[in-house]
């Protein structure tokens, strides 16, 4: 396709990371910078009776101490998405204060900030702040939160519901179809709460410049412009042109760094108050207590099949915990990012999902790698496999029976689901067959049979997922409650020397934008990659943007850049035509030059660039310069899909699961850089396997977290995983110029049910049909005993 597109080009950002020369927020030191520490609630729910800061104020090095009684206590951070009740009642949106004033509503909620000359001094003084609490009863489970006598998270409403919501066909119709179904498979489980655990803890530095009356916030965020918007327009009410957000290197996000956190706004406020820069970097212990968590759905589901194994109806009720406050994207996660995926890759004719979203006395829940889509996929891929098991069918057979037939979105129309979306293009059977071949499915079944005779427990699990990403058409998300547009911005500035600077609102926190974006920019312009520089992460430098999440950078951010390139080439052609004294229509552009068709006469990209900025001999009426900015608002989501297969062996004496093989065949549309796509899949799979086997945030009944460190919160380590066998099919996205779909979340979406299906398969002959995640040895062993 070009010199760079589709090639495994090595990453240009690696040199600085490998030499320890990256600039993460905590690496930044400003003159006169102060340090801060938070005093946080040791209770999930309590009245604040008093806060005594007298001793703390006297401590060495203390610059200032603020509590909820200070003006900052009147500010709060907003939620970015509104989902109203089915009966029309407006979503209940509690104030999410920067510091709690009267009550704390989750463990770790901040009640005071101590600012001091050094970090040691801030920590020491924070210990001297005396807070007197009256502990109140708490509720942490979403289902229990909706029980009649559950403790209320917010007193202003009569129950804990933030909103409720449904999607799909008429409930009565779905219920009637289930009544008549040949077989109904039932599942009840909790899609457990997870802590995202990006390896870089959150870090912020706020710097108020009194002379210019300007604020700079250095923040470890995935979307600097969105933070500016929320901080300025909603949290603090300061004009946007007075605020600069800088987000240099970010050490992973996985969703947890999308949101606008209270600490960002509080530090910004405090910096003005004390007239000096203030820094805060989270500890890991604080991260467990305050970073937005993921998942936390309690699910009750029924799927009906006819006698051939064709799905006839699907009905699900879910209780999706929101935590104590509504985080930025939280309402969208169990609704529009979740319910709209209930079609999966199947022709299910009747679907109904009902969601109740209660507040609980826990840290807010928000998007975590996949955001709503892993939860949908887990349900679909588990329940269809469970259905097959109960009906004595092979999991491959049942899927083949139910697949939506192939469609490319060009010759064949997109597939209209029962749950609002229209899929762009898909060939689900092809991905499944490729994965089965890669695994050697038939041979494995033979091996499994032999192993069982020897008393060994081998299992295989299949997951044929789809996801909707690359959000999205702003008109659509707006109609669905988004309070911001979800387009992206790409500016391409050709310098007079012909070198190209690209400014993108997408933000890399590990995805390799500096490389991948440069690849297609260089190819589209026919120049060398070395002549292209990608800039991101500074709102003073990049015109606008919406950031990186939902696997949208390439499909939305990339497309915006393409639009600007098109404008550059269009204008460049005018200049070239003038220089070549030819008609524009007679020119063709290739390999970095405009050539008069059928001749040797040409002018290079660099020449044209120079002419644009030194317009001595220039087309009449044409503006000088070669610099365009474009907004791209996609026509639809993109729909990557694929098949993941896990092979496990379960230790029959201990219940320990060993993941032996993992095959992932993903279709992410056109591939810009296969090395990077594979890397994204590897990481996603590891996180999905983590959910299946290891990870769970556990709050006890009183709202204390008993998995608040790496001593108790288990994440995959190198020896928990095998090599991941990846491959692709390519079904281009028909509606964006690069034909790309998105790869960031696919691994995490497809893998979790594959692993659980494999473990259940290994134990199927013992009568096991379901096990609750995470599949800890104890859980698996107990399942085998019953």
């Amino acid at each position, binding site marked *: 396709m070009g010199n760079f597109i589709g090639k495994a080009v090595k990453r240009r950002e690696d040199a600085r990371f*490998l030499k320890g020369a990256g600039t993460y927020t905590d690496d930044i030191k400003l003159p006169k910078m102060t340090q801060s520490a938070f005093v946080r609630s040791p209770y999930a729910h309590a009245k604040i009776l008093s806060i005594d800061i007298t001793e703390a104020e006297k401590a060495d090095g203390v610059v200032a101490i603020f509590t909820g009684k200070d003006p900052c206590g009147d500010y709060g951070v907003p939620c970015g998405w509104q989902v109203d009740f089915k009966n029309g009642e407006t979503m209940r949106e509690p104030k999410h204060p920067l510091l709690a004033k009267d009550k704390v509503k989750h463990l770790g909620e901040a009640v005071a900030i101590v600012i001091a000359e050094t970090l040691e001094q801030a920590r020491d003084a924070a210990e001297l702040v005396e807070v007197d609490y009256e502990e109140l009863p708490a509720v942490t489970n979403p289902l229990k939160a909706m029980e009649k006598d559950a403790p209320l998270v917010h007193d202003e409403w009569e129950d804990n519901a933030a909103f409720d919501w449904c999607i799909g066909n008429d409930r009565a119709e779905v219920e009637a179809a289930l009544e008549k179904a040949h077989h109904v498979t039932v599942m009840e489980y909790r899609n457990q709460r997870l802590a995202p655990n990006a390896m870089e803890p959150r870090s912020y530095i706020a710097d108020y410049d009194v002379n210019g009356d300007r604020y700079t916030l250095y923040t470890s965020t995935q979307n600097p412009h969105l933070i500016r918007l929320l901080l300025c327009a909603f949290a603090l009410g300061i004009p946007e042109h007075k605020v600069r957000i800088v987000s240099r290197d970010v050490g992973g996000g996985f969703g947890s760094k999308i949101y606008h956190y209270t600490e960002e706004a509080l530090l910004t406020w405090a910096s003005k108050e004390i007239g000096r820069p203030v820094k805060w970097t989270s500890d890991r212990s604080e991260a467990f207590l305050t970073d937005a968590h993921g998942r936390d759905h309690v699910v009750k589901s029924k799927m009906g099949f006819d006698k051939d194994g064709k799905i006839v109806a699907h009905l699900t009720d879910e209780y999706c915990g929101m935590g104590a406050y509504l985080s930025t994207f939280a309402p969208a996660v169990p609704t529009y990012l979740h319910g709209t995926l209930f079609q999966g890759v199947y022709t299910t004719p009747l679907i109904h999902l009902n969601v109740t979203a209660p507040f609980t006395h826990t840290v807010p829940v928000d998007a975590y790698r996949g955001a709503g889509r892993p939860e949908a996929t887990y349900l679909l891929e588990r329940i269809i496999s469970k259905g097959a098991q109960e009906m004595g069918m092979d999991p491959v057979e049942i899927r083949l029976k139910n697949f939506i037939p192939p469609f490319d979105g060009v010759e064949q129309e997109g597939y209209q689901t029962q749950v609002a979306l229209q899929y762009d293009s898909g060939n689900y059977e092809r991905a499944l067959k490729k994965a089965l071949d890669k695994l050697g499915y038939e041979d494995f079944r033979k091996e499994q049979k032999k192993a069982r005779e020897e008393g060994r427990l081998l299992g295989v699990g299949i997951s044929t997922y789809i996801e909707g990403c690359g959000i999205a058409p702003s008109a659509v998300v707006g109609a669905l409650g988004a309070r911001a547009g979800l387009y992206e911005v790409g500016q391409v500035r050709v310098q007079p020397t012909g070198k190209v600077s690209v400014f993108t609102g997408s933000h890399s926190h590990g995805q390799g934008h500096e490389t991948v974006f440069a690849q297609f920019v260089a190819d589209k312009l026919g120049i060398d990659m070395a002549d292209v520089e990608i800039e991101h992460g500074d709102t003073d430098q990049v015109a606008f943007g919406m950031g990186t999440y939902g696997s949208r950078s390439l499909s939305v951010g990339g497309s915006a850049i393409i639009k600007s390139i098109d404008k550059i080439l269009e204008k460049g052609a005018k200049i070239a035509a003038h220089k070549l004294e030819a008609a524009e229509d007679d020119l063709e552009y290739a390999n970095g030059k405009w050539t008069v068709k059928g001749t040797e006469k040409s002018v290079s990209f660099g020449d044209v660039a120079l002419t644009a900025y030194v317009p001595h001999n220039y087309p009449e009426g044409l503006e000088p310069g070669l610099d365009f900015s474009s907004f791209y608002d996609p026509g639809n989501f993109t729909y990557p899909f694929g098949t993941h297969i896990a092979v496990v062996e379960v230790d029959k004496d201990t219940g320990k699961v060993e993941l032996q093989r993992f095959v992932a065949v993903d279709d992410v549309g056109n591939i810009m850089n296969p090395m990077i796509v594979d*890397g994204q899949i590897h990481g996603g799979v590891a996180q999905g396997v983590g959910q299946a086997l290891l990870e769970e945030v556990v709050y006890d009944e009183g709202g204390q977290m008993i998995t608040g460190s790496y001593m108790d919160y288990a994440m995959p380590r190198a020896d928990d995983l095998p090599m991941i066998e990846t491959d692709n099919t390519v079904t281009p996205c028909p509606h964006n110029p690069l034909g790309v779909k998105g790869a960031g979340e696919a691994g995490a979406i497809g893998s979790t049910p594959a692993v659980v299906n494999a473990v259940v398969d290994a134990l199927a002959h013992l009568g096991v049909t379901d096990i609750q995640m995470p599949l800890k040895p104890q859980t698996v062993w107990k399942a085998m005993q019953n």
Partner: protein
Amino acid sequence: MNVTITVNGKTYTHDIEPRISLVQYLRETLDLTGTHIGCDTSGCGACTVSVNGEAVKSCTMLAVQADGCEVTTIEGMAQNGEMHPIQAAFKEKHGLQCGFCTPGMVMVAADILKNHPNPSEEEIRHGLKGNFCRCTGYHNIVKSIQLAAETLNE
């Protein structure tokens, strides 16, 4: 108290509080911010540096304990601007994404390869047990270390 530490070949003497960890000293006093802090409980390995030739978690060592020691950080791995073969291998095999755990990974890889010049996949995975990576699923980190072993053995 007064402490003398040689870091990346350069000897420093500083008066430091005993409670300051080695990683804080490196980051705050020497401005060597390549070494990262990822957790509080010695669980993540992001802060791994080499002390007297052995990989240690610099968040779980006081700077005063390093008095008289030779410390190598990620900043000291490249020589004359040339990446160390381990660093080069990480780039070649895409053994990093967000880059935050990477310095720790490179430093522990050096220890693994010192003790196992021809490591098996299992030995590499066993050796990486003390380091979390949330981006790569370890796949390409293992491949990077395998490649580094080949290069170093040439």
